[in-house]
């Protein structure tokens, strides 16, 4: 019997984009987050807490990068530009305008949206690898701009010192208070990562991103508005990364052009390479492995960057899909037997 109502066909498609497994996966996610929160209290060592705080902040950056690079397939290499704008705008708003840090982080998100849109507009007219060239050029051009920005209070080469501490409901959270910072950064990190992977990427936007990545022309022919969704990919990615920048600024209380330096960029590249793109939780695992591994390598000092570089080369050659690629290959192998 054919129903009159065509909004509700007899058969529906079951998919992660229509909510399949959402509750279960969400419960697992928040259980892991709760476990990490308890872990923070159990760890006595402030240095280890510090490493985890960095992990949580990096998780936001890498999840945002995974959104645009891994899911939407846009070769954006200006991710740390968003981070820098977030860090500088949040720091400057709280230093010069006296905003409370939480408010300045929120404003930094707005700045991130604007910067994301600004970088998106020329990128929308470019194809594939030219987007990579353009966005990386923006990344390279930013440090000299920041130097010149000394005149408007950007601190030049030495950066901005004395960024105000986070003020949580009247309670000042100093950088030394690692336990509170552990929880604060975990809260920011888990909420942002959840919004990115569970809300944005499992919704219509995520489906549009994957469609554009897999088959751009076909996607347009079935109604995907390429301009709109590519712009959204830049803006959403930039907003979350700018928030991470803001949190970072108030945690370290120092913002310098070093956040656009080779070390940070290499770190981010290695995280993506280790974890693998476009498949949760690959990139997030990459962050944990690389940040913790990087701390373990501290004793190598000057050779650390070299080791990171070698790691990227080896990973890209032998494990092009990262951790998730490895897991995928194994399950594919099993299927073939």
């Amino acid at each position, binding site marked *: 019997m054919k129903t009159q109502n065509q909004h509700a066909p007899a058969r529906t498609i079951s998919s992660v984009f229509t909510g399949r497994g959402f509750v279960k996966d969400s419960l697992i996610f928040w259980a892991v987050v709760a476990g990490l929160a308890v872990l923070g209290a159990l760890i006595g060592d402030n240095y280890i807490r510090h490493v985890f705080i960095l992990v949580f902040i990096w998780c936001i950056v890498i999840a945002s990068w995974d959104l645009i690079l891994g899911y939407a397939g846009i070769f954006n290499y200006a991710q740390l530009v968003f981070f820098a704008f977030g860090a500088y705008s949040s720091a400057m708003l709280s230093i010069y305008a006296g905003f409370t840090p939480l408010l300045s982080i929120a404003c930094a998100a707005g700045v991130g949206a604007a910067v994301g849109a600004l970088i998106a507009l020329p990128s929308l007219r470019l194809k594939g690898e030219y987007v990579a060239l353009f966005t990386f050029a923006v990344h390279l051009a930013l440090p000299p701009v920041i130097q010149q920005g000394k005149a408007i209070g950007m601190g030049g080469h030495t950066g901005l010192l004395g960024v105000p501490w986070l003020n949580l409901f009247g309670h000042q959270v100093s950088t030394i208070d690692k336990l509170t910072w552990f929880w604060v950064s975990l809260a920011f990190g888990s909420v942002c990562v959840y919004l990115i992977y569970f809300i944005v990427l499992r919704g219509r936007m995520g489906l549009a991103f994957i469609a554009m990545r897999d*088959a751009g*022309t076909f996607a347009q022919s*079935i109604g995907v508005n390429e301009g709109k969704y590519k712009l959204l990919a830049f803006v959403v990615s930039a907003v979350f990364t700018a928030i991470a920048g803001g949190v970072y600024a108030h945690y370290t209380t120092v913002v310098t052009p070093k956040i656009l330096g080779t070390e940070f960029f290499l770190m981010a590249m290695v995280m993506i390479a280790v974890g693998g793109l476009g498949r949760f939780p690959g990139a997030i695992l990459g962050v944990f492995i690389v940040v913790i591994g990087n701390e373990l390598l501290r004793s190598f000092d000057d050779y650390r960057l070299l080791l990171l570089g070698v790691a990227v080369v080896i990973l890209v050659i032998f494990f092009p899909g990262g951790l998730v690629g490895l897991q995928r290959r194994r399950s594919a192998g099993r299927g073939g037997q």
Partner: protein
Amino acid sequence: MSHMSLENVTMKFGPFRALTDVSFHIDRGEILGVAGPNGAGKSTLMNVCTGGLRASEGKVIFDGKTITPFSRHVRCGLGIAQTFQVPTLLSSLTVGENLLAGALFGREARGAPPGISLDEILSLTKLGDLLEMEAARADLLTRKRIMLGAALATGPEMIFMDEPLGGLNAEEIADFLDVVRHVRDTLGITVVMVEHKTRALAEIADRILIINFGEFVMLDTPEIVLNDDHVVEIYLGKKHDA
């Protein structure tokens, strides 16, 4: 009744003219075959109709509305769908998700729910048992069916198919032609089919359009077109050449 018409359409790439002053009507509810030798401008013609290219001169009119400057997704929203010669799908997703994407974004582009239900699409494309399969693992015929299914899910009034029979064997061709007939007969969708396989085209098309060197040659019923001396000459060369 004209569903889409081209008025003096010229498509230039620099100094090269891929289409020169082409005009014709596509009737509502017909199956129109488009044929011509390699490089005749068939793909260009299709792109001008579906939004892949913007005609340099002339007009494309759909349902009485000029759509010449509109991009692909806008035309999709108006009810113009297309399938491609090489079936590129959303290969990291399941078959069902490919159809879902068509329904979802077709609806977004149109601003209203598409008028074709999932049941109809599944009975037509016979994809019902394959919804959970990864699209990347489908064979060629299945890939073509998925692509058609996703295009139909957008709820089109007219569909352009670029060489839908390419790479299929005789049996598969017969199967696919059946599907195309159903698309027109049960869903009432106007079908425009670019195809090299003229025999199959003659079997299914109501009319056939022949273009050569980017110019309109003729548009008539298959019997007339395929028995026309000039058309035979285009395909086989002049009789007295040898």
